[in-house]
């Protein structure tokens, strides 16, 4: 496989692009693998890659019912940050951010991680103070954080709404400078290409239709492309976790599937150089500009449980109101597309990465809004869990038993109502 570099790009410019080969193979599924990862999203692909790379495992397959990166991998608003404060989350997301910083080199694929600062606005002195705990914990645990005053914000982003008649005047912001955005598709393809290079079979259009149990283990899985047996099975199928869980006859999970919409405008010349988060008075809004020029933004989930990848109008209206309230210059900017993805909303807003009641089944689920930024660390620690058959300390609290014991990991304090963990 050709290594990606400017050199090769120039060389291929002269050879009519003839030097590029498939970025990943299209293998027929074998009947047996050591490890099968179900779900060809970012987490599944990353898991396969780190299994092969960190543990030198060879006989691995990723099975995907559609096309890799076709679920939430390609539907999110591409924000990467680590402003989490609770034990477990903090270390995990910080590790992930560190991995992001070198991901393009790691994968030899430009995932375009742009550390353009993640700016969370606050509208009263009290709100800024309350949020300070989170950012202080970040600083104290080796991350970066700073406060931007209104004056500093005005200088950096002069076209935000500083008007006196704004419903919620901007008071200041908490900023993580190392955070930013990345190119979501490239991450999926980069992991796929790198995993494939290490011998992982990436099998697309292969839907799992049955999970066959035998003596507390999974004996085999039935797929639309035949039966596959494996020593270990890993689930990474955000949005559809409950369905596969129930295919394995495992009952209920602390997860609800909800749909989250995302939006992009027509391409514009550079207008916004940061990621901005605006949340006040019940509004929730985040926006950045893609390298192509489209403003990419999103808001709340649609508030009711859904497996449909189609959004409804009230959220379109809500996010547009926030957009205009934050950036009054967007009135004439036009919405190009809006779409939605199905996310696993969990009972405390945090993810699950753990062993399951079945010996050889491993679970990676419940990413709420946070799956994209988690991808590298998710792959890393999930691979670690599968290979070693025990959770790393960092993820050990992210198990299914935590609601039995009361060890909730609730960053927002919203309690056991999945829709509130936005």
């Amino acid at each position, binding site marked *: 496989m050709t290594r990606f570099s400017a050199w090769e790009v120039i060389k291929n410019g002269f050879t009519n692009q003839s030097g590029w080969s498939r970025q990943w193979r299209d293998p027929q599924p074998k009947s047996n693998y050591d490890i099968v990862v179900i779900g060809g999203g970012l987490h599944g692909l990353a898991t396969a890659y780190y299994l092969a790379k960190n543990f030198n495992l060879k006989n691995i397959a990723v099975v995907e019912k559609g096309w890799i990166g076709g679920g939430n991998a390609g539907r999110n608003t591409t924000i990467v940050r680590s402003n989490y404060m609770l034990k477990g989350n903090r270390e995990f997301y910080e590790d992930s951010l560190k991995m992001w910083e070198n991901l393009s080199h790691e994968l030899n694929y430009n995932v375009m991680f742009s550390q353009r600062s993640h700016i969370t606005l606050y509208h009263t002195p009290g709100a800024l103070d309350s949020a*300070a705990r989170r950012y202080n914990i970040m600083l104290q645990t080796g991350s970066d954080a700073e406060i931007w005053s209104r004056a500093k914000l005005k200088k950096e982003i002069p076209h935000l709404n500083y008007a006196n008649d704004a419903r919620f005047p901007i008071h200041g912001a*908490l900023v993580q400078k190392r955070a930013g955005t990345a190119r979501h598709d490239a991450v999926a393809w980069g992991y796929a290409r790198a995993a494939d290079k290490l011998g992982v079979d990436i099998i697309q259009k292969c839907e799992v239709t049955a999970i066959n149990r035998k003596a507390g283990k999974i004996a085999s899985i039935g797929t639309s492309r035949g039966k596959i047996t494996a020593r270990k099975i890993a689930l990474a199928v955000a949005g559809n976790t409950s369905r596969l869980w129930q295919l394995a006859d495992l009952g209920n999970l602390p997860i609800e599937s909800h749909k989250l919409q995302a939006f992009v405008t027509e391409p514009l010349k550079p207008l916004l150089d940061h990621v901005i988060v605006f949340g006040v*008075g019940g509004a929730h809004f985040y926006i950045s500009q893609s*390298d192509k020029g489209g403003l990419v933004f999103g808001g709340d989930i649609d508030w009711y449980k859904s497996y449909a990848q189609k959004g409804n109008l009230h959220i379109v209206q809500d996010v547009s109101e926030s957009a205009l309230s934050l950036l009054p*210059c*967007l009135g004439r900017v036009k919405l190009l597309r809006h779409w939605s993805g199905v996310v696993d909303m969990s009972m405390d807003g945090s993810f699950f990465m753990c062993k399951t009641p079945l010996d050889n089944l491993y679970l990676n689920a419940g990413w709420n809004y946070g799956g994209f930024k988690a991808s590298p660390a998710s792959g890393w620690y999930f691979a670690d869990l599968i290979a070693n058959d025990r959770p790393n300390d960092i993820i050990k609290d992210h198990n299914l038993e935590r609601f039995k014991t009361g060890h*909730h990991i609730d960053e*927002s304090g919203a309690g*056991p109502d999945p829709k509130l963990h936005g």
Partner: protein
Amino acid sequence: MKSERINNVLHPPEITEDLIHFYWNRKKYFARKGDSIAAGLLANNLNIIGRSFKYHRPRGVMSAGVEEAGALVTIGFGARTEPNIRASTTELIDGLHIYSQNAWPSVKHDFGSILNFLGRFFAAGFYYKMFMGVPPFEWGRGTRIWMFFERFIRKAAGLGKSSRLPDPDYYEHLHTHTDILVIGSGPSGLQAAISAAKTGKDVLIVEQDYIIGGSFLNQQDKKELEEQEKLLKKLGVTILTHTTAFGLYDNTTVGLIEIIPSEGRKDLDKKPRQRFNICRANNVILATGAIERVYAFINNDLPGIMSVNSARAYLNRYGILISKNIVICTNNDSAYETAIELKNAGAKVTILEIREQIGDILLRQISGTGINLLLGSGVAKAEKGFNNSTISRIKIVEMTDKGWRYAGTLFCDCLLISAGWSPVIHLASHQNFPINWNEENACFTSFGDAKSVFLVGSAAGIWQQKQCINSAKELFKYNSKQKYKPSLITGGWEKPIAPLYEIRLASIKGKAFVDPQNDVTTSDIRLAHQEGFISVEHMKRYTTLGMATDQGKMGNIIGIALMADALNCSISQVGVTRFRPPYTSISLGALAGRNRQSHFKLIRRTPFNKFSLNNNAVMINSGLWQRPWYYPVQSETLDSAYIREATITRKSVGICDISSLGKIMIQGPDTTEFVNRIYTNSFNSLPVGKARYGIMLRDDGFVFDDGTTWRLANHCYLMTTTTNNASSVMTKLEELLQVRWSNLNVQITSVTDQWGGCAIAGPNSRNLLSKIVDNPVEISNESLPFMGVKQISIQTVICNIARISFSGELAYEIYIPSDYAHSIMELIWSRAQEFDSCLYGLEALGTMRIEKGHVTSAEIDGRVTIEDIGLGRMASMNKDFVGGVLKNRKALTHSHRPQLVGIFPKHKNKSFKVGALLNEAGRLNGHPIGWVTSVTFSPALGHWIALGFIEGGLNLIKGKNIVLSDELRSTFLDVDIVSPHMFDPEGSRLYG
């Protein structure tokens, strides 16, 4: 290409006489009223209108419709700048300023076009393969190198430039209900609306164009349109022009955007610019028409190349003969009528017919017209002239047994293409209705859901106007089940189309475009296939095909066909990507409507709002509420004001607006049982006329909310909640009563807005109150003891008064009916002048409750247990309550949980802030052992104090040196951890 206006009988004089002017890149030109921007530009022979996204190739008008991928312009200036406007569909308004975009220094001589010559290096996905490290071998780590390149890439990308000034115009929302919504006012749409109206239904027809008629407008004979229009009006059908149905949502809700014409308007500021109309229809008829496709050949993006139908639109609708030397290349019957019309208008016309045979009727029609017909021929390459950028000649090919063969060069200055038609099925796709590849007609078709959404006319893949109109008529003939009957017939050409997506000869080199806006070429599609991006979704994302402002209305099918070819499978196997709303781009301003600026979210004001403002209050947002923050005297700062307010209150008396607390009236025979189940502590023994502080938990055992509940009568309680949780508590109580405990006979009503609440606190509070109430005896210590509740009249107005205290002073909470709140407050305040008194705001309220160690939502953050806040004794062991079971889980009862404490700085002159962390001295890294939740300067204690949580609480922390660290604001200081009850711990002041 040289276009000209034609003035003949087809163009009524009232249009030709109506001259308007516009500015193209600041230069003045003239056009006719009714022109689109594209028509105005073409009529002035302005052929190079924009530059493409990637290679900065010149772009001209490619269509006369929403599929336009070339003629994108910016209109307006200053704060009214609007980028990425489709010239082909936007009405040209007198005096309009139009600018080219994505070009520097000018659209004719664009510096960026240098990229065109480097194009060989910019194949699909090249940016995934480089820019990550130091070139050429991508050395290095981190993101710095990418971010260096990114700056230049961002500048080169993007199309139009948007204004950074606030949009000065406003927009509004409208809600519409109708039986039947017809989308599109072409022949089928008009007929559908007429037929539907005849069945007695309420019908709304919407048209994205600025006049109705659809394809009727492109025809020479307008008689039928006029008749249909008359009929429509007679039947009372509502017609909305300038209105795009941009999305189909659940329950046949359709999003409409109506552009309100600004023509001749002097009152721009007073009228909305656009209207977002949310239409709920019982049935939706998609009469959305079809879009004519082009195909891929070398340089198929040159200005001067457009679809056949658009030339017809410019000829018959706008009176512009696009060129006098035209070549038409087609693979279907639809182009011939246009060819004849163009010929009749005075152009030289050559038809290159892909098919080797055409039907007899067509043949008869063109025979004798002077049109030159070449069968089995096509275009393989277009070339520009030496001194201009528009098309000047083409390389033609002819079909042989072995495929296409070069057949010579033809000079022309306009090339029209018709490679088939794509029905506009976007709205059906929004709802995921089935979409199928129609092999015979080489297009994707949909039948909607056949329950409430139907397609008629060419949107359903029907090509002949008569049959289109018929399909609309037929639909409204009910079938036996009283359901509408959609047509299942498609097509209708004399001879079938010869599917054509690309003409490629090995000997002819150059770029052939699939998506001319995003500069996606056929080789990009092939490269995507070569690199394994074989799913249509991958291809789209890797090449960016169909992701430009036209969302692939013209190009998508070519891309899909090329991928099918590469994969050696059928188009239906490759499938189509799902269309997403909006159908055409819509402005965010319209979607937001009036809900912006001060109207972004509603404002809740208390009944004392006016009073507070009259008394110089500085207000603060608290959720949606605006509450008095502090009442500065003269130029007092926040700090000096709240310190003064708290001091006077503790010394004498202060008055505070507490109206935003949630107030819930609970009534009914089972009320006591209900309240008992809600709160952790028992309310069984609470006598009438007494209040009790209560804590409620969530189902999961964590603290939900707190407040006092007053027993007003045997079966009547008034519950107060925190401001933050007022609505969630109400919702929860209703859920419990209606869903879980429907056997309890209890009614609850939110009365938050019915009562204005004020606290009167301080040693003089009773003295002040006795000057206000009608009968002072009622508030004596005996008559109204601590936690006592009474209905007392003030100026004959019955108010609820409770002797409860958040400040720790002798204090009362008075709830006054909202209508009387202002005047009674004025009375209280005027009587208060006899004392050393003050109004105090949220900040001083906070000061006094922090001194007392009372918790608010700063402490009750959804993660604390009742023990954590030191109120474990309030969890009754003798009864069951919500959350009572799960609160006993292991992690919730752990002795090392962070617990509520008071915090004093060791050096009493030091201040600090909320959000600071608590660490053991010498261990300032990693997770802290505690944090600060509330901070104030305590006038009572004379130094800064705080509430916070620390692992294990006061007992476990004893003897340890604790450092408060606030790295964010560079504050580090030694602190003492103390009891949260920092002032008057025995509560002696409560009794006055």
